[in-house]
């Protein structure tokens, strides 16, 4: 297998997996908080927040990448302020994580929100009469009963992040070993004479990861966690 993929391809695969996993882990707390707000709270500007949430799904990814560059680039106000305290995203692998997180965020929030919406409010009322205040109710009732939706959202966001190309290449470019993710490596090989074998190999790897993600999503939807949620609905 070592000879089947070049060291650079292995780097690209490892980077893509790292970026995708980290992007989900980093965005999960924010997604949980926003999904909760959208599911349970009425607040001014709610419709605007919902519209903004959909933007990464609707905008061309290259535009999202450009927006990130305009916001977090070295010459951008926020980017230069962060650079002064040693935090740089542009043209760094950490920037690829930010781009992947932004692109996967809507899928994560929407899945979790649907899961929160489907928790029986009467159970929360029962918990409240038993003395459980807000955070405890969330932790002991809402969160466990939403696990399936949260897990499914994580898989979707992971898959979106793993396949991210447009926003990533706009924001962090293509730097081997730093920002050259698997989709970018495939794109690069496509334009190189004799690169087709590498394209095929990397595409097969991408297919395997996608199948694994899809299988996980299916298993979560119909598997153990799913059954637990269905018990709740009965």
């Amino acid at each position, binding site marked *: 297998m070592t000879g089947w993929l070049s060291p650079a391809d292995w780097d690209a695969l490892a980077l893509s997996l790292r970026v995708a996993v980290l992007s989900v882990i980093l965005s999960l707390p924010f997604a949980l908080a926003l999904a909760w707000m959208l599911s349970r709270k009425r607040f001014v500007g709610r419709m605007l927040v919902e519209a903004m949430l959909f933007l990464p799904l609707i905008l061309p990814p290259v535009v999202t990448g450009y927006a990130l560059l305009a916001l977090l680039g070295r010459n951008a106000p926020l980017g230069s302020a962060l650079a002064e305290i040693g935090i740089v995203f542009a043209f760094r692998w950490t920037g690829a994580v930010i781009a992947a997180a932004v692109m996967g965020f809507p899928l994560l929030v929407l899945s979790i929100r649907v899961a929160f919406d489907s928790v029986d409010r*009467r*159970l929360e*009322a*029962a*918990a*409240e*009469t*038993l*003395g*459980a*205040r807000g955070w*405890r109710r969330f932790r*002991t*009732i809402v969160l*466990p*009963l939403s696990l399936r939706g949260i897990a499914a959202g994580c898989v979707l966001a992971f898959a979106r992040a793993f396949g991210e190309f447009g926003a990533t290449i706009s924001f962090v470019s293509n730097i081997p070993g730093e920002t050259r993710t698997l989709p970018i490596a495939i794109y690069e090989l496509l334009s190189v004479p004799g690169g087709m074998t590498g394209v095929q190999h990397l595409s097969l790897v991408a297919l395997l990861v996608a199948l694994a993600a899809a299988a996980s999503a299916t298993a979560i939807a119909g598997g153990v966690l799913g059954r*637990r949620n269905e*018990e*709740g*609905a*009965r």
Partner: protein
Amino acid sequence: MIDLSIRHVVGDLDLDVAFRADVRTLALFGDSGAGKTSVLNAIAGLLTPQAGRIALDDRVLLDRANSIAVPVAERRVGYVFQDGRLFPHLDVRANLVYGARASNGERVGDFDAIVALLDLGTMLKRMPTTLSGGERQRVAIGRALLANPRALLLDEPLTGLHSEARQQVLAYLTKLRHELRVFTLLVSHHAAEVAALADEVVLLDAGRVTGRLSRAEFTARYAAIAGVA
């Protein structure tokens, strides 16, 4: 002791109810739509009446005139819902201790005693979906009691159960009535269970109190439908 006087008009609900009682078990008796469950919800804090005052013993839970509304989680009322509302992802033991854990160090109901009283010992590790309707209701009653409530609110606890389960749960409720010193407010449209459990009965119809009967008076008036002499 309960002292309640509430007014609430929203949509089809037109509630204007007042009663005061100092008995062990009080029943609210009336047809569906009489406003019985809304009264329970107001006591538990799940419904905030537009006007009124609710006090349990010497504790004011609600006083709209003085802007007092104790949060639901702090009212310490044990609410047994008509549909049980056991937490589906927790086993029976975890359901039972849910309220006990939430009461923050205050003395809670004795777990072993409640489990013995309701014969729950053999089902502690089971999940709610594997329980029969009657078993679920017994767990719901145990869970409410273990939260060490000032009052136990029973919302049609036997509705939806088949006759055997109904008799079984009724027997447990009768046992509780004798063994526990907790004020119980029973909501029901079944004369038999009211006759079996209540010391005093408030009759409700279309959101208004239409009468007040002692247990003997209730039994005499509703003997035919209650199936008691």
